[in-house]
């Protein structure tokens, strides 16, 4: 019910409408709740309305944080595979 997905704006239409694309499917939605959305922007779409824009720079930062968690040097040391035979 509350699931909404990020979709890319592929065409701006009249009357605060636009067309978005999501996994090859195109759909007409309303931009009435989001000011200043432009062609190529990603928006989060719910029940036919864009709720907000998605910030690509923040998305990259979040992914970088995920990657960092995996790369943490302590991770290798604490990894179960590396712990075999240790006293813990």
């Amino acid at each position: 019910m509350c699931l909404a997905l990020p979709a890319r704006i592929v065409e701006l239409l009249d009357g605060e409408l636009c067309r978005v694309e999501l996994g090859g499917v195109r759909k007409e939605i309303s931009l009435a709740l989001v000011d200043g959305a432009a062609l190529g922007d990603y928006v989060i779409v719910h029940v036919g309305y864009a709720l907000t824009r998605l910030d690509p720079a923040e998305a990259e930062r979040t992914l970088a944080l995920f990657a960092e968690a995996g790369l943490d040097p302590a991770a290798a040391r604490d990894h179960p595979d590396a712990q075999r035979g240790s006293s813990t």
Partner: protein
Amino acid sequence: MKYIDEFRDGRLAAGLARAIAREAAPGRDYAFMEFCGGHTHAIARYAVTDLLPPTVRMIHGPGCPVCVLPIGRIDMAIRLALARPDVIVCTYGDCLRVPASGGLSLLKARARGADVRMVYSPADALALAVREPAREVVFFAIGFETTTPPTALVLHAAAAQRLDNFSVLCNHVLTPAAIAAILESPEVRELGTVALDGFVGPAHVSTVIGSRPYERFAAAHRKPVVIAGFEPLDVIQAIRMLIRQVNDGRAEVENEFTRAVTRDGNRKAQALVADTFESRPSFEWRGLGAVADSALRLRPAFARWDAERKFALDDRPVPDHKACACGAILRGVRTPTDCKLFATACTPETPMGACMVSSEGACAAHYTYGRFRAAAQRTD
């Protein structure tokens, strides 16, 4: 798909799981409630709990709007649709199968002659009213802060077009009030049934209301809140951020979902909602009972489009099915398998309670994704 697949990457998930294993303090337990059904769904579907140490427990909260909608409100729509052949009731697909009184649901009422239709968007309901001027089109509106602004927009459009055959039966509810009810309800306080260490906060609701409304819980109840996106990596990272807060003795609002959520949220949508709706002094929630200031109704300026006034509908509260444990599940006190009806009398095809209807309900999520894994673990 961009901004979806990257947040489901298994390799990154393994890295985050290792980080959690290393950060969870030995000898202590963590219990976090994910408020949204979207998170419940992601946790079940991607088996997030398999990646967590056994000391970290996730409790499914009441954040599925279909699951918390009480029987009495659906009865109201069914009574109207059955009594008035000129009325067309429109609603989102999930609402159609929620069990109501007398063995009915909106879908079964349709089989008895009521004109009930599924819509994907409130705009579809409005368009139907334009197409059918001789009929009364009632949009049965449900949902948290995500679906409320679209309902507000169609109400403004109906007012602007003087579309008098359109009205809204408003069941919109407020997330912060529900979180407060969980923390402050006498049941929880007296019995101490749910010991919660923090909340995974709503994703899409927060795109609209921002992160600011949660700040008071964090402060007043000393509970950390981490707002998280609905993809599995978002949830795992949020759990990691909660563990860190607990370890540090902090109780703050943090935002994992920075790609879509800001502190202030969508001001335009908030202004529109404030302009259209006002708070109801009290509203019945399935599982939580009557919660003060937890729901919205139309402002007097929109009285002509308010189905409750227009058709003089009265709200008759109905107790939930006796054997259904939805209430306890929505409070995090019990789990789906604790319910005698689970996967026997109650399945997604024949739901007895609302938690089995929507794919975001705790029972449906467990039925679809968790059951076989749980069985496999038992036989191990």
